[in-house]
Structure formats: structure tokens, C-alpha cells
């Protein structure tokens, strides 16, 4: 198995709080990998450290065999990133954003322009290409962000919650593009807490909880005959009864009018 991404005891602390407590993430090359976990499990922190945006307090991160913090030139040429929150250069238009990104990476102008037009067409953004990113909707922002991340044809793509707040039509476009991309042998790693989506798209799953990886492997191994949702709830200890205790008033019809 060729590893696209490997981390070894990756560790990060913010003040008193340990956000990532020794993560050993492994993702085989060419896989469509899902990083799942409840809110606050450390997914975003882990992805930020792997992509060189946040300095880890300890541990090792490698992409394609290159150390993220020692060989940044090699690593940064090989990865595409779509971080959480998605702050882009808001005062550029979608097209200008793609041009800026490509040329900042030293790709010749003619190539950048050609790739940008194709990406805009595939992402269904041609009509809004000359509008400022600050006026884009969430779905459009994710699409232009993904286009910017794909422009330099990276080997590994990191996406933090790429489908959050995206309408079904845009989500479909995103998944189609990503499927085509992995079919060519490239790797996608995305974080999510929508289990159905992960189950549908991924062939590799890493489950995070409380700053640790609690399960990792091929999708069928991890879910072991259950649905991924069931497996996930058991792994992170999320099934705490059905919630019948208390809340007896909820759903009861009010009698005094208000």
C-alpha cells in the first residue's frame, strides 16, 4: 500500500485544552477517504496541521513521503486545500480568484486561463464568474474554492466539511468532480459528520473522537456489517438512550393558548 498521507503521534494543544492528542492518520494513495467525528473531535485542527497552516506541538506529518514541516516546497506543490469557513479573497471575482491562485503558483498565464475556464464551466459558475466572491452564496463559495484547490492538479486534496451548507445540485456537481479526480489515481481526504454521504462516497474511513483516531481502515472493515452511522455511534459512544427521560412537555398540546 502506497501511503498518500501519514501522520505519527500528531499533537496540538490550545492553552489547557488538548485538541489533537496523538493522531496516527493513514490514507492510501488513490483513495476517497472520509475523516469523520463529532464536533470538537479535532478534525479541523488535524487537517490544518497536515496542510501546513497550523504548527503542531509534536509528532510528524508526511504527504507522499515528504515531511510537511521540513519539505514545504515539495509538499505544497502536491496538495490542494479547501479549509473550513472558507475565507477567500473576497474582493476578487471568481475568475480573478482562479487566475490569482494559478499564477501565484507559477503556472503560465495561458494555461491558468484555459484551466480556469474549464473549471468554471464544470462547476457551473460561468454566469457568476465576474461577480465578486464576497457576494457568492455558500454553495458557490465551496465550488470556487474547490476549483481553486484543483487548478494546479494536486496529488492530494484536503477538504474540510466541503458539503456543509451546500444545496443538493451544487453538492452533486462537487461529488461528480471529486469522483472523476479520484478515478485518475489522486487522493481526496474530506472531513464530514454526515455519515450517509461518507458511506456513499468513500472507500476509506478514519473515525476521530476526543483528539484520537478510534478506528481506521477500508469502509467495509470499519462498519463491519453495520451501517456506518451505527458503527460511528458505537465507536464514539454516542447512543445514550433514546432521550425519553425528561422533555415530557415536548410535543404536548398547550392548553392556555400560548
Amino acid at each position, binding site marked *: 500500500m502506497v501511503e498518500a498521507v501519514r501522520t505519527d503521534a500528531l499533537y496540538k494543544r490550545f492553552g489547557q485544552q488538548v485538541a489533537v492528542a496523538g493522531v496516527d492518520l493513514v490514507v492510501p494513495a488513490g483513495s476517497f477517504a472520509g475523516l469523520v467525528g463529532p464536533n470538537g473531535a479535532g478534525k479541523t485542527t488535524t487537517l490544518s496541521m497536515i*496542510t*501546513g*497552516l*497550523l*504548527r503542531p506541538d509534536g509528532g510528524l506529518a508526511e504527504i507522499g513521503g515528504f515531511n510537511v514541516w521540513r519539505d*514545504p*516546497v*515539495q*509538499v*505544497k*506543490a502536491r*496538495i490542494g*486545500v479547501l*479549509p473550513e*469557513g472558507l*475565507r*477567500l*479573497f*473576497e*474582493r*476578487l*471575482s471568481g*475568475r*480573478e480568484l482562479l*487566475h*490569482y*491562485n494559478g*499564477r*501565484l*503558483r*507559477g503556472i*503560465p*498565464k495561458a494555461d491558468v486561463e484555459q484551466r480556469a475556464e474549464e473549471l468554471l464551466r464544470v462547476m457551473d459558475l460561468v454566469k457568476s464568474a*465576474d*461577480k*465578486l466572491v*464576497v*457576494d457568492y*452564496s455558500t454553495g458557490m463559495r465551496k465550488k470556487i474554492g474547490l476549483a*481553486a484547490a484543483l487548478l494546479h492538479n494536486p496529488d492530494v486534496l484536503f477538504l474540510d466539511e466541503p458539503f456543509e451548507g451546500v444545496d443538493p445540485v451544487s453538492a452533486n456537481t462537487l461529488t461528480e468532480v471529486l469522483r472523476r479526480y479520484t478515478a485518475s489515481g489522486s487522493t481526496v481526504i474530506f472531513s464530514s459528520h454526515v455519515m450517509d454521504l461518507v458511506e456513499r462516497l468513500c472507500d476509506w474511513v478514519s473515525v476521530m473522537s476526543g483528539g484520537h483516531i478510534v478506528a481506521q481502515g477500508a469502509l467495509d472493515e470499519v462498519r463491519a456489517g453495520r451501517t456506518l452511522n451505527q458503527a460511528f455511534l458505537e465507536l464514539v459512544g454516542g447512543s445514550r438512550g433514546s432521550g425519553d427521560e425528561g422533555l415530557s412537555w415536548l410535543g404536548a398540546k398547550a392548553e*392556555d*393558548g*400560548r
Partner: protein
Amino acid sequence: MSLGAGQTARLFAQLKIQLIAGNLRGDATRKLGFVFTLLAASVIAAGGFLLMTLIRLAPADVAADIGVVAFTVLLVGWAVVPLLAFGLDDTLDPSRLSLFPLSTRELAIGLFTSSATGVWPLATLVVTAGAIVGLAGGAGGILLGVLAVLLQFALCLVVSRLVTTSLSGALRSRRGRDLMAVAVVFVVLLAQLPNLIVNRGVGDLPAMLAATADVLRWTPPGLAAHAIADGGLAGLADLAVVALVVLLAGWLWIKALARALVTSDASTQAASVRRSSGLAERFLPDGPLAAVVAKEFKYIRRDPRFRVGWFAAIVVTVVLGFSLSGTGDSGLSGPPLVIGLTAMGALMISLQSGNSFGIDGRSLWMNAVVFGSERDLRTDLAGRHLATASLAVPLLGLLAIALGLFAGDLAAGVPAMLAAWGLLGVGLGVGAVTSVVVPYTVPERLNAFTGAAPGQGGLAFAGSFGAMIGTGLLGVPLVLPVLLGLTWVSAVAVPYGLLVAWGGRRLAGSIGYPRLPDLLAAVSKST
């Protein structure tokens, strides 16, 4: 079941106090900021009260005039300041409350109470109350005074509410906020006006006061102030009018509120931008440098924060020019004026580059995932410098020529121009270093009171102060000889400036690149 007026008022007052308290929890810098606000408000309240009472020492008619002007200034302040600081107060935006089952009446009472609760409203009330001591002449005056002060206070609150509510739609749209951000500059300029007038020695003050008060006397705050001074039947009539105005403003506000709550913002219907390949594309070789320069040009044109920065730099230079050249014999004139002012302009423009990455803010990650070496960061800085310089160089040239013509010494324009260009280079070089040593977040929406994210005020101060000191120290050997008449020194100004800028970028690259993640964190603070 609906709440009574008293209950609603109490509920909203509690809500506001909880909001203030909640804002303070945990964060030491915010606590410090609040203590500072509290101190400032107390000082202003006490000082304002004292000043108002001191009006008593003036002759009766002058006192009344001062009262009229003071009341009007207070009202205008209440109408304008919340607009510029929209977002300082969570209760200000009524759309946050639109999902609660509140009737418009409850909402109006509630929002009125919450705007009356707080440090600044209390300070206003205290200052206004000072007018009773300052203006009232007798029992009738005191009685009417209490009423007038309460009415004036209510007027301030209701008008302030009316203005923010009727503009809240515009304030929520991107274009409206962009416009507001630039409007800040005009307020700063307006604040300079009295200073300018006094410096130019225009007119005599008492006559101006009388003329102003004559007009303002018939505005609602003027009527309220007049009522206190009058203390008789005419005063009572004055107050009746003020009360009517308060009611009318209140009614208009409730109408505006009802409309604002069901009107969506139209900010997504945006216009397209022109597709253009600018100067940078034509003259620069293809590559990262050209990309950065092109992006910077677009940002200078499109981001209100850049517009504010450039505009402020020019305005400050012009205002300084008027102040310095103004007062006849004591003012500067001749070559020192031309050289000094042009250099000041260069300093003002270059100071904007003291926090180069601040405006990029959270989007800086797009650069951070690309930059794999110090050289990449240096290229980024060089692109920013090139963009700034290609605007500043012609601008400073024009300024030098204009000042030369103004001072009647066109020959002084040449050394002034060269020295200013050199100083610009020095400023950019120093700014590159401060940009990576003390980076801070520039808030998306500037308001007139802060230029940094909460808790980073000290950093911002250190950054701009450091940039100013550094530019000063490195610039003095350049500007001072020229200023003293050794104009030949200006010949080496441009090479010297280029050298410092280059050195600054080198230093910034080697300091900044290893700190890139920290830099990213520092400019990505939530605002």
C-alpha cells in the same frame, strides 16, 4: 398572554445587562477595555456635567446659546455614532429579535429600554442634567428643566433608533456597509473642521456662536435647551413641541421597525465587475509577482478599507498643510514647507503598509498553502510594494509640484519629490518588517473607534508606532539634510529608499516565513 410595559422594560434591561456581563466573561483584555470605557464614560459624564454647570458663569443670553448648541451636538452625536459603530451593541440590530413572538409595541418598549440601559446613555443623561444647573433661573426653570432633560434624553434615544432602524436594511447589505466604512473618513474630517477654523482665525467666536444658536434655537434640542433657560410659559410651549417630536419620531421608528423585520436584504443581487487586464499584466513578466500586483490593484480599488486608508493619508496631509502654513508669520513657508509636507505625505502612505497582511485576514491561507520558501514571501511583499509605489510615486510627484506652486518656489519641488520617494521606500521596507513581527487583524468593517480586532489594540498600536519610529529613524538622515538646504542629498534618496525597501523585504522574508502559521493566526482573529 402578553407582557405589560413594565415587565417588558425590566426584561430588556436585564437582557442588556446580561449581554454586557457576558461580553466580559473570561477575556482579560475585554475586561480591561470595559474598565477603560467605564472610566472614560465617568470622566466624560463628570466633565460634561461640570462644563454644563459652568455655563452659568456666562451672561444669560450667551449661556442659552451655548446650551442650544450643546443639546444639538448631543443629538447629532446620538444619531451618527451608532451608525459608525454598528455592531458594537448586540441589541442594536432588531432583526436578531424578529423570531420571538413579540408585538411591535413590546419590541419598541424593549428596544427603547435596552438602548437606555448602558454606560453611555447614563453618561448622556448626567451631562444633559448639567444644563438644569447651568441654565435654569428659578423654580419654574428647574421644574421645566427636569422635564426638558428627560425629553431631550428620550429624543436622543428615539432618533438614534429611528436612524439605525431605517438604515438597517442598507447596513446589512454589502454595498451599504462599504459605503458606511468610507463615510467614517468624512466624520474624521468633520472633526478637524473646528481645528481648521480656529487655526485660520476665521471670524470672531461669540458672533459665530450667536448666529449658530439663532438657527438651532428652533430645532427640537434647541427648544428643549431654550425651555430650561426660559422657565415660563414660552418654555412650556417649547417642551410641548419637543414632546410632539419625540412621539412622532417614536411612531416613525415603530413603523420602520415593523417594515425592517419583514424586509430581506438584497445583498446577493450583485453587479459584475469589469474584466480587465490592467497595467500590471502589460508591463510585468508573467508570474507570481504580476499576480500579486494585479490582485493588490483590485483590492485598492474595491476594498473599502484600502479606500479609507488612502483617502485618510491624503486628507491628513492636506489638513496638516493648512495648519502648518496657516498662521501667517509663524507658519512654515518656502522650501521647508514643500519638502516637509511631501515627506509627510510619503510617511502617511507608507504607514498603510505597516500591516500588509492584516487586510487579507483569514484569506491569507490561500497564500500560505502556496508559499514554500522565504523567496515566495519576499515576492508577495515586493508585489504589494510595487502596487503601492505605482500609485504613490505619481501622487507624491503631483503633491510636490502643487506645493511648489503654492509656496511660489517650484524649484523646491524637485528635491521634495525625490526625498519623498526615498522616504516612501524606507517606509515600505520598515513596514514589511512590522507586517511580519506585529501582525494584527484589520476588522472587516472599520468603525471610527478601533482599527484592530478585539484584544489586538495594543498590537496595532505597537505596530504602527514601531513603523513610524523605524521610518523616522531611517528617514531622518535622508530628509533632514534636504530640509536644511543640502538639496544634493535628495539625489541619493531614491537609491537609498530602494535599498531599505529591499533590505526590509529580505529581513521580513527570513523572519516571516518560519512564522507563517503564527502570522496566519494573528490576522485571522474574529472581529
